[in-house]
């Protein structure tokens, strides 16, 4: 597969404001819109330009709004960051678009609507204070009417779901019944109804009676794409639990446990940290089998929900050359980076990010993979991206880069694949890169 540069968004200057760092990327269900959230609590939505030329797939800004503001928790004397942790789109129910965005403590339902009518004919003064001239006598009744105007995109918050999480929210996921969603923090998962903001049900609680016995936390949670009663959650110890909401009201007992048996030879001080799962994604169901993709620090793992106790179906190494550098990565905290992963619309490819602004795409059918770089230097229109390679032996070839020369501050944590086309959006710090491909 060959990938071409399509667009880049965000300032190209070296001076990056912390608030501009992108913290999540999500395509809408039909791929027409792409939402990004940043550390400053803003959400920017891009829309696909509808052009007759089907090869061109460019996105331009559709709407920008401030989703969350920084807050202060007075009771605990803690700041609540406004950084957007996750965005999830709801299925379309009318011409407007709805999405859920969350920071550490509060989830909000936003409605993004277009307005193409304006009310005119008010019997008031204009901006400068002059009486608006009108036809007819003053005593005649004048009713304001709607007149067509330029399209204006408005974002308004419709629901606020707050005060249900003691710890930081890491995931939200919408149920296939389209009226409920879950939110997960480190120790608890809550179930909400989209219409009801003052109540939520707790469905998983792994807080031990004695906090000193705490050994694992919840890192991600996701509803099954069409079974309304199933959801999965991953832990910091690398295990995935599948829960069936039909069995009990409180799902502390998992229905299935998916984990890889530990290899005693490979144990090290860092084993547990690097096994912590940072993202979970269900496949789209393009194939007959439903797979679950998990991302831990060094690998991507593919799980089959029906195969309990057998470990993952496949494992894809993302950046194995980092095995020898774990100590350094621990010291500079990079070992705790949470990378996301995505499926292509046909479930054939999987995408995830790495360091040095590298990102990796794996082809499940041919078992090939490719490493590409989201670089500001490759931004000529339709420029073909050259595959990158990290050298793992002492003999460094011309184009290769040594692991010691990787820039660990340039990490691609967030990326998304268009739901039906081979188009990806990759967030590199404050820039959003769009890449497109043709089958090679």
């Amino acid at each position, binding site marked *: 597969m060959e990938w071409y540069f399509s667009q880049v968004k965000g300032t190209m200057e070296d001076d990056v404001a912390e608030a501009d760092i992108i913290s999540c990327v999500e395509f809408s269900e039909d791929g027409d819109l792409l939402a990004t959230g940043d550390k400053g609590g803003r959400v920017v939505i891009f829309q696909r330009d509808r052009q007759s030329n089907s090869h061109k797939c460019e996105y331009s800004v559709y709407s920008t709004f401030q989703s969350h503001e920084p807050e202060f928790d007075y009771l605990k004397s803690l700041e609540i960051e406004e950084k957007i942790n996750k965005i999830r789109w709801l299925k*379309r*129910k009318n011409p407007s678009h709805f999405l859920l965005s969350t920071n550490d403590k509060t989830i909000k339902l936003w*409605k993004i609507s277009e307005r193409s009518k304006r009310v005119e004919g008010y019997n008031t003064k204009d901006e400068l204070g002059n009486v608006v001239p009108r036809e007819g006598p003053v005593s005649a009744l004048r009713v304001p009417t709607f007149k067509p105007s330029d399209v204006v995109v408005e974002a308004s918050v419709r629901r606020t779901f707050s005060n249900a999480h003691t710890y930081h929210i890491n995931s939200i996921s919408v149920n*296939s019944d389209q009226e409920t969603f879950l939110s997960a923090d480190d120790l608890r998962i809550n179930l909400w109804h989209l219409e009801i903001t003052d109540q939520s049900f707790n469905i998983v609680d792994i807080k031990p009676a004695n906090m000193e016995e705490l050994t694992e936390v919840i890192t991600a949670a996701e509803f099954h794409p069409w079974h*309304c*009663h199933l959801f999965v959650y991953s832990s910091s110890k690398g295990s995935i639990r599948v829960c069936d909401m039909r069995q*009990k009201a409180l799902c502390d007992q998992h229905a299935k446990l998916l984990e890889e048996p530990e290899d005693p030879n490979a144990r090290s001080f860092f084993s547990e940290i690097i096994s912590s799962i940072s993202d979970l994604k269900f496949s789209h169901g393009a194939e007959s089998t439903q797979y679950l993709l998990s991302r831990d620090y060094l690998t991507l793992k593919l799980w089959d929900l029906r195969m309990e106790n057998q470990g993952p179906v496949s494992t894809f190494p993302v950046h194995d050359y980092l095995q020898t550098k774990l100590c350094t990565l621990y010291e500079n905290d990079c070992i705790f980076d949470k990378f996301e992963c995505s499926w292509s619309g046909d479930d054939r490819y999987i995408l995830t990010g790495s360091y040095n602004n590298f990102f990796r795409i794996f082809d499940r059918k041919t078992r090939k993979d490719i490493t590409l770089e989201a670089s500001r230097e490759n931004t000529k229109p339709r420029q073909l991206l050259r595959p990158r390679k990290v050298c793992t032996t002492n003999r460094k070839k011309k184009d290769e880069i040594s692991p010691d020369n990787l820039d660990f501050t340039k990490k691609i944590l967030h990326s998304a694949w268009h739901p039906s086309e081979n188009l990806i959006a990759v967030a590199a710090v404050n820039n959003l890169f769009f890449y497109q491909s043709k089958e090679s």
Partner: protein
Amino acid sequence: MCPRSSTSARPFQAPLESLATVEETVVRDKAVESLRQLAEQHSNRDLETYFVPLVKRLSAGDWFTTRTSACGLFAVCYPRVSNAVRAELRQHFRNLCGDDTPMVRRAAASKLGEFAKAVEHEHLKQDLVPLFHSLANDEQDSVRLLAVEACVSIANVLQNDEKQRLVLPTLKQASEDKSWRVRYMVADKFSELQAALGPELSSRELVPAFCSLLKDAEAEVRAAAAAKVKDFCSQLPADTRQQMILTQVLPQVKELAADPNQHVKSALAGVVMGLAPLLGRDATMEHLLPLFLTQLKDECPEVRLNVISNLDAVNEVIGVKNVSKNLLPAIVELAEDSKWRIRLAIIEYMPSLAAQVGVEFFDEKLSALCMGWLTDHVYAIREAATNNLKALVEKFGAEWAQQTVIPRVLQLARDQNYLHRMTCLFCVNIMAPVCGRELTTKLLLPTVSSLVSDPVANVRFNVAKTLQKIGTVFDQKVVEAQVQPVLERLLQDPDNDVKFFASEALEGLRLQ
């Protein structure tokens, strides 16, 4: 019956139609409600010409919000349109029941019942019952549980043999559904289902289903079923009822009384007493009495409260004396619970409890408790205790009040704590109307007046307020001789609030 005037109805249809498509559920629901009322205003012909096309437009709308609104408009127009149009409406409803989006199927399921009532019998069996079956087998839990509600309505309009053939298998399936939420709905609607299926079918087929819900793995389901035990048993056919309860229901009930989940136990405690009249004296003594006694000692206060609040059923059958030995410690423990809301709950049951145990038992064992509450730390308790006294005086009479209650209340007037002195005044406020003029003049008034020189201003201004309240009980001579001087003295009080309330009282009693 005013004649239908379509001309006034039609202009409203268009804006209501567009309101029925917005994304806010509450707005859509109101619009649908208004459209239903509007349909009443249309003549039959106009219904076909204007209203039915609206329904069809909504059912075929692009967005699911539009289609959900359509579901609520079928029943109201179906009976009044021609056969051809009826066939079309049935087809549209069928499409909605099979819609792609769960929201529409949910709306269809929740309106299936009312539509079933409007449709002719043969079409009900031919068209709607299959829809009911498909919704009851939907892959979404939220759709299946709404089908349970529809089950009640459909069963109500079918004949007996049809019920067994068409509804019962689906109902049984629902009571064994994998999703606890569906089973919960069955438990919750059990009384209605029982009534809809009729006594014979229920006793034959529903008893095993009910018993299995009482044993369900999920506590929420058990609690919902437990809350229905009394209703379920009382609807069983009279001749076999006692036997059935003893052999099938009671064993489960006994297990539920020891359930690990406190909500289940509370739900059971609230209704299990209702079985006493159904079982008769002997069976109650043998089987239910031990149960009550255990529940009275349960560690969860709500369970104990629920038992006590339902004692009248037991009293009817075996007399409360049989439980009184265990009843008293339970009441005392609840009355002294550290949580004030629990104490409040027991106070609220006290009047009915007193009526059942009778005045002797009450005086001997419970009156000290009632007086004690008057000096509780929590104001809400003191207030409830005061109201309790009024109810007791109403039940037991003024003479009893004179002997037991009034001396203790008046004693409070000399208490060290000003709050207790104020409570005394509040008691007087409440009791004066039920005690009558003589008692109030002779006993209560002197004490009230004596507090005119209380060191605390709050007490003094409450004296003024009390005098204003009870002043209407006295005759004019007493008012002028005894009440007015007190109020006039208070009018000269150094505290402003006291002066204010004194003047209010004087005005209220028309003395100024």
